Each structure stands twice: as C-alpha cells, then as structure tokens.
C-alpha cells in the first residue's frame, strides 16, 4: 500500500493531454461566467429570494457581484490561453464555489463538479501545452493532481450510482418510468418514433434501464482505472453521457465529464505511427484528417516510401507494441485514439476483428 501511494505521489509523465483538459475547462468556465452575466441582466439574485449557505453579510452586493462575474470571464480567458492558467483555475474554482454558497437555489451538480475539477487541475502542470507564448522547457511533470481529478470523477459515479441503488424507486425503474411519462411528449415532438416512446414508457423496460444505468455508473467508477477495461469503459461512458445529453437537461455536465475522461489517456505522445502513401489521394486525405483530429497527439504522421509490406495500402498504423494495422483495423485504431471518432471505436473494432490477416509486426 505504501508503494502504491508513493507511486501515485511521485508519478510523472507527459502533460500534453492536461493542456487540452485545461482548455476544455476554461471554455466551460467561460460559458458559466457568461450565463451568470446573462442572469444578472435579468436581475441580481441577491435582490430577491435566495438561500445562502454563508452568512448574509458574505453575499456580495449587486455591484460587487457584477465585478465578480467580469473577473470570472477574465479568469476563464486566462485559463483557455494558458497564461497564468493554474492560478486562474484556482481563483475560478474558489469564486464559483463562493457563488454557489451565496445561493443554494443556483446549485447544480455540474457547476459544483466544474469547480472541483478546476481546483484540482490548478495543482497539475496543465500549462505546458495548448498555451500562448514560448514552449515550456519540458512537458514532463507530476501527475498526482490529475490522478486526484480522476478519483473525483469516480467518486461522482459512486455517489450518483450508489444513491440510485439505495433508492427502491430508482432501482425498480419507477423514477425512469415517470420521467418517460412526463417527457414522452417532448420526445415525440423531437421526432422520436411513437413506438419507441411507448415501449420505453413500460415498467418492465424502465426497470431494466434503471439497473443498467446504476450498473454503468458503478462499473465506470472502477472500470476506468483498469488498464484492460479502460478503453471499453471510456467508450461506454461516452455513449452513456451522450444519451443523457440528448434526453435530459444537464447544462454542461456531459462535456465536462468527457473532458475529464481525457485525463485517463496514457501520458505519452506520438507513441503510434501513421504512415501514408503520399502518392495516393486517399493516403493524403487520411493523413490530413488524422492530423486535424489527433488532439491528443497520439500519432506520428508521415509519408512512406512504399515497400513490400505497405504496397497496396494507402495507410498503415503502427501501434505502441510495434504491430501494424491496415484497412478497417487501421481505421479502428484511429477511432480509438481521436476524441471525435472515439464513439465509433467499438463497432469498428468489432467489425475489424472479423477481417483477416491485416496485422503484422513492423521490425524496422
């Protein structure tokens, strides 16, 4: 146990992905500050009924609150730009938490989660990539705070899944059944087929869905930490949150969680190679697409000089372990490593598993 703790405490790695998470959190903080500004235009919450956690004397006046909102906008800009980003993250988190404490009517789980992640990321070297200004001396840095943010995500899953598991109405499907009854009309208006809405509004179906949702949350809390299960857990989690986003109002929670998922990627860059035939349009197009979508810098993309193995292929992907993939397997590999294509990874990988003999070990 002591070795595990020491390993966690002293772990270092490439912090490239942390920069991407910082930018995503900065954009969400920016959106959150803009929402507060819009709400302020409609009226200041302190002038009407509010329910503070802190003593009323600590609730700012309208003018101070306006200044605070402007400050939050500026801090979010600093976070996105990567200039004094860590201090800006911590200040954003503290101000955000204070606003929540000034009026618990404004409390939403996603807002609290954003403040928590921003606070934790402030302690991680997340300002060494995706930043304005000169490049850092090194991108390698301690990862303990990023790991703590990952623990935070797992705690959220356990809290959410656990509270549902302990609630007989939830685990029995009653809560979902009533939600479908209440919002089935909206689903119809949105173009969901009537037969599907009717089927989903049946007790036996919602009972199964409830158990699936609870199992998903609890298993994600664990599965994300398993080296073997991680990719599938991430893929399942992505779809879980996309479905929630499409069917419920959760503000920015989906995008926040998906941003935090990035912390689970292996902390290295360009550990895979994508070689393409520059003489073929398909190869050039694939290379350009991967360069554009490869936000996590998973691939070293370069043209090849055709040889015996690669002849006949526009693209060859070489994995970390040195094995090469072509065709559908290469496409599955690209989907696995690029955030925008990641939702397609599992079906592509399944299809690719039926293809024959397209993998080979590259010894060069």
């Amino acid at each position, binding site marked *: 146990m002591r070795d595990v*703790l020491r390993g966690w*405490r*002293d772990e270092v790695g490439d912090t490239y992905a942390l920069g991407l998470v910082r930018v995503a959190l900065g954009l969400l903080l920016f959106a959150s500050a803009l929402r507060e500004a819009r709400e302020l235009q409609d*009226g200041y*919450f302190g002038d*009407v*009924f509010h*329910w503070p956690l802190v003593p009323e004397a600590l609730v700012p006046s309208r003018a101070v609150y306006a200044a605070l909102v402007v400050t939050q906008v500026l801090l979010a800009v600093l976070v996105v730009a990567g200039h*004094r980003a*860590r*201090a800006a993250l*911590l200040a954003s988190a503290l101000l955000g938490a204070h606003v929540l404490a000034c009026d*618990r*009517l404004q*409390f939403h*789980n996603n807002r*609290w*989660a954003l403040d*928590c992640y921003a606070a*934790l990321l*402030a*302690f991680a*070297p997340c*300002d060494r990539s995706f930043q304005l200004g000169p490049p850092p001396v090194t991108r390698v840095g*301690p990862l*303990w*705070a990023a790991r*703590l943010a990952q*623990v*935070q995500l797992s*705690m*959220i899953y*356990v*809290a*959410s899944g656990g*509270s*549902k598991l302990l*609630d007989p*109405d*939830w685990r029995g499907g*009653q*809560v*979902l*059944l*009533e*939600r479908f*009854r*209440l919002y089935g009309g909206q689903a119809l208006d949105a173009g969901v087929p009537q037969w599907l809405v009717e089927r989903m509004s049946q007790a036996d179906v919602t009972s199964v869905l409830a158990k699936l949702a609870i199992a998903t949350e609890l298993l994600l809390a664990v599965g994300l930490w398993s080296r073997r299960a991680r990719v599938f857990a991430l893929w399942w989690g992505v779809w879980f949150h996309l479905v929630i986003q499409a069917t*419920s109002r959760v503000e920015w929670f989906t995008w926040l969680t998906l941003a935090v998922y990035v912390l689970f990627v292996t902390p290295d860059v360009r550990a895979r190679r994508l070689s393409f035939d520059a003489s073929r349009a398909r190869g050039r197009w694939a290379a350009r697409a991967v360069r554009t979508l490869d936000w996590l810098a998973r691939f070293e993309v370069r043209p090849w000089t055709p040889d015996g193995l690669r002849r006949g292929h526009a693209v060859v992907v070489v994995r970390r372990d040195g094995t090469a993939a072509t065709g559908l397997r290469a496409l599955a590999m690209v989907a696995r490593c690029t955030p925008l294509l990641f939702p397609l990874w599992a079906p592509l990988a399944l299809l690719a598993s039926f293809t024959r003999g397209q993998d080979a070990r590259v010894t060069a």
Partner: protein
Amino acid sequence: MPGALDLPPRARLLFAASWVVLQAALVLTARTRPDGIFGFRMFPEASTLEIHLSREVGGRWVPAPGGEWSARDAAGQLRHFSFRDRVRDPVLSSLDVRVFAAYGADAQLARLGRALDDVADHVPEDGETTRLRAEVTVWRNGRDPATTVLASRPRRSP
C-alpha cells in the same frame, strides 16, 4: 503562483487525503440536507408538485391565485402584491400549475418554506396579511398525490 501550486511530495498526500475525506463526507451527509447539495445525486426523483398560495387575514385563509393579491397598507391605501416579485425560481414561482420538482420534492418544499418567510418579510406595505401559506400537492415519482401545508412565520407588523 504556480510555484505555490507545485506541492512537495508530503503535502500532496495530505492534500489528496483531505480532499477525498471532504468529498466523501459531503456525499455521505447529502441525505441530511433537504436539497442534497454537494451529494452528486443525479436525477434523484421524477416528482411533480402544484403550489397554491393563500394568506391569513383576520384569522381566515384567503386564496392568492397565481400568487397575486391586493391589500391595504397602514394608511388605508389599496396596494397590489405578487409572490413573483421576490421569488424568481422557475419551480417555486409556478403557482397553481403542476411542475417538475427538480432535485426532488423535499428540495422544493425546503426552498418553498424559506421563500414564504422571505416574501412575508418583504411586503411591509401589506397591512392586512399576518401569514402566508402554501398548500402543495406532491406526486412523488408518479404515485398518488399527497398534500403538504407550509406556512411562513407570522409577520411582525401586518
């Protein structure tokens, strides 16, 4: 500032342990808070409720449809009052209609109880009303309705 945020190894463990203990405590005690805040209880219920407001005048309860009422001030001048002047929350300010109880019925009832006190404290020109009351019909997760009555604290100088 980043220097101060680069914790030495021993402080990392202390910080992480404190963070986890704090979050665990907030999650485990969420049930003790009516609105369950800081507990990450997502979609806790699918309850709905309908609020009807009334006010106590001379020992009798008088309905205030839509949260609106008129009353005379100390000088005998007739004035108009609205619950929504103070309460802007989309759930609490939807009176006489059935609405979704975001974060659960208990959360909304707790908020409503405080909203009644707040409104009662902020209508100094109302020289007639001694208390406000909300009769709330709650459909908890689609079950048969149950009615709860909440009242504000008595006003000091109606």
